């Protein structure tokens, strides 16, 4: 067993070393980042079998579990970090060839750190540590956004303003929680949460929601998303949309299922999510800019996940989580291919992609695989999660919610198909701007999509276990606190 803290420490170490590597060779930083992500995947694979048996609690600095920072890796975290490691590896591979920025080494530094931050958000078992990792992730994202020298600054400034405000609220929530409970450890707070005055729980959980949901794609808070995701370089967009959102939702789940499991809060989450879902889809339909469309679609998907998870039953949660992981994989694929298409066509408008499939077939196929996956076509991974979502929400008797979700999917279908039709059947109207090649990441991602679509057992079995763990807080508490 290799200590899982390494998957946070190694990217950080790599990031700190990058200025040195850059001094040696300009190409070295990207290779180093690629190697770190590969080692991370290896570490996770080595640990997989053990963690699936029972959750692992890593005590940092050899301090007894609830008193200092600890890292908790249960099944949910395990699946998350596995997905994150696979995707980050793919994106790092993509970066090997596609990161010709003016300050390339800095790009790789930021990328390496954002990955560490994402791992941290997912794994940490301490609320202040969660704040720190969220800040690492967002600050890295601010920096990465500005690598687009055209409109990146504008997107970044909006992102920074919103991010700073919500970090204040997050800190406030942490302060209140600490003042009431006297500890920052999630398990201790969970154990004490029944004792906290319900009014205070309301306030704290709302503040937590505001502080985290801005990184999780819930609409009034994540209104910066389309700007940032559409402007940032494709590798960044896919990281932000696939991984940061995944981490954000995981953090929300931790807060609302492990920390404050108050069912009356779920109704709020469900309503917020549903409204955000419909508005996100409706706006996405209007977009001409392909990356903006994808960004709105991410918002909608995340809202969908939140809504479904907040139904709060076993089936619904496992469906929502599956959708979350699918979305991470699919959005990475979509943003990478969309970025390549933009590079090729020299335009961001969907109408300029007419017949592009004949010139760059693999990329076009990759894009359509991603879209079909999101739309839930059988044998794509989205299908299983979609029917799991329908099953979950109907199982809980949420008929209106089911209707809304399916309605949203129809709108989603409308705009994704517009793109697919244009790129495959549209009139050829492009004079190629640049020759783009990127086979390996796209092929790997397509393989993953079909693998999960045809053998969903790969993920549904662990997911059921994860859902079980989420719903039994007492297990979580006793796991961390031991015999206390």
């Amino acid at each position, binding site marked *: 067993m290799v200590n899982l803290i390494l998957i946070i420490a190694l990217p950080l170490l790599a990031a700190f070393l990058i200025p040195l590597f850059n001094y040696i060779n300009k190409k070295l930083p990207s290779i180093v980042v690629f190697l770190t992500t590969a080692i991370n995947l290896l570490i996770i694979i080595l640990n997989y079998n053990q963690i699936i048996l029972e959750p692992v609690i890593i005590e940092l600095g050899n301090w007894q579990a609830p008193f200092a920072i600890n890292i908790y890796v249960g099944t949910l975290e395990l699946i998350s970090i596995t997905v994150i490691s696979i995707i980050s590896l793919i994106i790092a591979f993509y970066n090997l060839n596609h990161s010709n920025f003016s300050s390339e080494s800095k790009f790789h530094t930021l990328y390496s750190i954002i990955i560490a931050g994402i791992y941290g958000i997912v794994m940490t078992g301490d609320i202040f540590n969660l704040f720190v990792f969220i800040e690492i992730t967002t600050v890295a994202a601010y920096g990465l956004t500005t690598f687009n020298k055209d409109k990146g600054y504008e997107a970044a400034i909006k992102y920074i303003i*919103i991010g700073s405000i919500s970090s204040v609220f997050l800190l406030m929530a942490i302060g209140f929680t600490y003042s009431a409970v006297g500890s920052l450890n999630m398990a201790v707070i969970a154990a004490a949460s029944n004792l906290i005055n319900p009014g205070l729980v309301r306030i704290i959980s709302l503040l937590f929601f505001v502080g985290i949901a801005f990184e999780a794609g819930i609409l009034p808070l994540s209104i910066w998303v389309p700007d940032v995701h559409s402007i940032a370089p494709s590798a960044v967009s896919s990281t932000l949309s696939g991984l940061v959102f995944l981490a954000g939702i995981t953090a929300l789940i931790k807060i609302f299922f492990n920390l404050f499991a108050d069912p009356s809060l779920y109704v709020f989450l469900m309503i917020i999510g549903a409204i955000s879902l419909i508005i996100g889809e*409706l706006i996405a339909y209007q977009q001409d800019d392909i990356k903006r469309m994808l960004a709105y679609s991410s918002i909608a998907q995340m809202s969908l996940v939140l809504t479904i998870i907040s139904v709060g039953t076993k089936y619904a949660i496992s469906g929502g989580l599956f959708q979350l992981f699918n979305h991470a994989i699919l959005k990475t694929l979509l943003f990478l291919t969309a970025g390549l298409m933009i590079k090729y066509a020299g335009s961001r408008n969907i109408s300029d992609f007419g017949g592009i499939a004949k010139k760059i077939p693999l990329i076009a196929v990759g894009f359509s695989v991603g879209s079909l996956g999101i739309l839930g076509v059988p044998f794509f991974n989205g299908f299983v999660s979609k*029917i799991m979502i*329908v099953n979950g929400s*109907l199982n809980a008797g949420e008929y209106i919610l089911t209707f809304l979700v399916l309605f949203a*999917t129809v709108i989603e279908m409308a705009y994704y*198909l517009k793109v697919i039709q244009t790129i495959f059947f549209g009139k050829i109207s492009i004079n190629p701007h640049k020759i783009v090649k990127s086979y390996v990441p796209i092929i790997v991602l397509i393989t993953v999509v079909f693998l999960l679509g045809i053998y969903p057992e790969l993920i549904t079995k662990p997911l059921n276990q994860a859902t079980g763990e989420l719903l039994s807080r007492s297990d979580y508490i006793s796991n961390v606190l031991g015999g206390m």
Partner: protein
Amino acid sequence: MSLFYYTFIPIVIAFIAYFLNKKIKLSLAILNSVVFAYLFYQISRLYNQWNIPHETISYYMFDREIQLIFQLTPLSWLFIFMTTGAGLLIAIFTIKSQQEYVLRSSFHLNFAILIGSILGVVLAGDFLTLFIFWEIMTWSSFFLISSGEKKAAQKASYRYIILSTIGAYLMVTALFIIYNQIHTFGYNQVAAHLSGLPITESIILIIMLAIPFIIKAGVFPFHVWVNGAHSNAPKEFSPFLSGLMLKVGIYGVILLLYFVPLYNILKESVNYRGLPIFNYILAIFGCITVITGTILAIRQEDVKRLVAFSSISQMGYIIMALAISTPLGFTGGLLHLMNHMIFKTTIFLSIAAVIYRTKTTKMSEMGGLIFKMPVTFTAYLIAIIALAGIPPTNGFISKWVIYQALIDKGYIFLSVAAFFGSIGSFMYVFKPLSTIFLGQLKPEHENIKEVPFLMQLPMFVLMALILLFGILPGLQMNLINQISQLLNIQPVGFTLYSITGAFGKWNSLVIFSLFVGGFLLAFIIFISAKKSKQVGLMDTYTSGEYMDDPEAYHYAYQYFRPFDRVFDSFAARSLTVIYDTFAQNIVKLGNLFRKSIVTGNGQTYAFYMVLFIVILAFAGWII
């Protein structure tokens, strides 16, 4: 060979062929034909082997193992046989016809997937399997329709997929409501459960289950996708779309009405003339479909659109016949289903052949092709005779049985509609005949030749089938009676060349002999009479005047104008407008959100954030 493989062989082969296609140009079409031929052979050997055991694949989902069941019944055999047969004929047709078609490889890929998925739909033994393959079928056909050469193809396929998806989602919702109560998707268990539920609940669930099938069959309120899709799809796909895809919808209706014995479930609900209200409404919808399809078909200027509307109206017959749930009705419905598949495929193939040569679908741009393309003309002629329901073709027999069924039960309105449709079909099928094949040959079509043999072959086969089943309906009745037995319906009496109806017996052999006699007589008169003199068409009715708008003078243009005028106001307010308005309103709503929320001002975004907290806080106080 395991049933499971029937669905996956075409799909797997399709992908292999797709990659091969880069190297060898025609490999896709040929490989597809070979695969379909092989499947066709295998399936024909399955006839009468109804006791093949079920096959299951288990899938781990929702916390438990879920079985995907594949099973073979006479009903599903009929459909897989038809599917592979039609697929084979069309694949052979495409070998030659698609040489200049750009999206050829995508066409074949999707076509093979489509065939596989239809086999899956029909062989499915439970609703989840059905749903999975149903979705794949929808998607592959969506890509097929969008690969049409016209720009409108994309819009048409768009409408098709949206409608289909709405239907599919209704179905999946109903399925999972049921699943959550009984934890299985099996046909029999679902049926048993439905019959145990309160009547309103089960009717709602059944309607939700039925809607995707009704949409796919193109029945009245959901027929809006049919004409666009048929007329804009690639010319080789239209035959399949009309001949088979619509029938898969019918398969679902049969499945619900008979296989899952809906009739029994609904018996206790409100009845009208001994028919459960659901069935009666379905029959009424069928009848409206017949009328709408007919009227709209008469109005068309585009030959593919015309035939598409004709398909809609013929679907109406089948639905009507199946919905009335008598042995005769069931038999008539199934007969018409097979026959319609045969003659409609023929019509579309012959039109595809014409398009292949003339590169246009507008009737007013064609004319006089009878001597240039005699085989195509013959195929079209025979097919429209069958479509109009004239003996000795198969179309007559099925229509005859349907009339018998309707009149027997005394459904006056339905019978009148059926007759109206029949008369209307005379009008609209005659229009392409006279404008494409008869009339004056356009100067630019002087050098047209008959299509290559590989394209003629499917037409020959289909022509033979039309006549064969017209004379020997007993071949079909044999299978239909086996299906009837399976579904506990009383069989209809028949011999090889006769069918027993409600008011007597139809003996096609006698009629055929009479027709052959009459035809010979007419032929003798024709060759012994004096030849008519050929005069240029323009000469007769322009009288030497100068023409400023030649198209308006082409006699195909507004062929049935007086008749159209009667229905002008009706057609203007078509359903399409209603659907489009609905969609546009949603778009407007989205635009409103977009313009008012996403202003681009970072400060406003920050303000939303604060506002959001405040609203949530107060909502928290209120609740």
